């Protein structure tokens, strides 16, 4: 009896995690991203090869995403030397529709890492490419562009990046 309950609980707990990441798995190459910055210039993920890249999928209409921006800011500032040395970058990919809202949030949160968006809301092809089922969502790609972490948040995210960058000192 005990075993059955344990099994049920386990299935429920793990089921939702597996569902999220069907198309985006650790060890795979991160799908290419080629999207415009607010000024219209296209940034590609492949141009960031050689760096550890945190790809942050967010939107201004997503409250938990907004709450996470100061945490990303703290991570970025902590590792600003690595950023300057070309070893780390954050690529914010917004699923916004409204460009004004997007730009205002970039200013409000004082975001100085890369920001791109096609302003297509959930219709953005990038949502399909990364099989995103909800926001916030993120992927960490290593310097070869290979996915090494999926959807880490809070301390787990900060620790993962700390450990990786310290290890590759």
């Amino acid at each position, binding site marked *: 009896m005990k075993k059955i309950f344990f099994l049920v609980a386990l299935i429920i707990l793990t089921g939702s995690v597996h569902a999220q990441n069907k198309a985006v798995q650790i060890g795979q190459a991160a799908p290419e991203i080629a999207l415009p910055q607010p000024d219209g210039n296209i940034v590609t993920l492949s141009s960031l090869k050689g760096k550890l890249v945190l790809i942050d999928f967010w939107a201004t209409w997503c409250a938990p995403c907004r709450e996470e921006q100061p945490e990303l800011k703290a991570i970025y500032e902590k590792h600003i030397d690595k950023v300057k040395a070309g070893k780390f970058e954050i690529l914010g990919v917004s699923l916004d529709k409204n460009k004004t809202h997007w730009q205002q949030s970039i200013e409000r949160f004082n975001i100085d890492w890369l920001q791109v968006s096609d302003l297509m*809301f959930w219709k953005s092809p990038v949502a399909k490419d990364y099989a995103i089922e909800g926001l916030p969502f993120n992927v960490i790609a290593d310097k070869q562009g290979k996915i090494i972490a999926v959807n880490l948040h809070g301390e787990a995210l900060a620790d993962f990046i700390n450990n990786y960058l310290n290890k590759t000192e």
Partner: protein
Amino acid sequence: MRHFFMLFTAMLLTGSGMYAQQKQDPWTADQLYEPQVLADKINQHQTDNIVILCVGPDALIKGSVDIGPTQEQGNIDKLKNYLKNVPKDKEVIIYCGCCPFVRCPNIRPAFKLLKDMGFKNPRLLDLPKNIKMDWLDKNYPTSD
């Protein structure tokens, strides 16, 4: 030990944490509108008797009217203005689809306005996760 697992499982299954939130929602379960039903109506051009209003970031559903996110007072005013010319017995379906219902800032003020204005058939399109998972991924009709 067994009791612990029973309790744990029961909590997971009933989602007791969500219950308090749902109790405060302005809609009832039978006011939720099945996406498949709406998709069929749109595909068969049988939408004369319904009004489909987007109260979120983008009116992705074919034939829907773009009101804008109703967490903003300006868009609530826009919705109010639009509804002035709609008969009260018309079936009015609203949707947002940005986020799971529990986190969406737009559907509650919009639905409340429908009720306050005396609409007899207010409906909320049942997109429990978001419009990608519950509409786009199912290849239901979109606006382009």
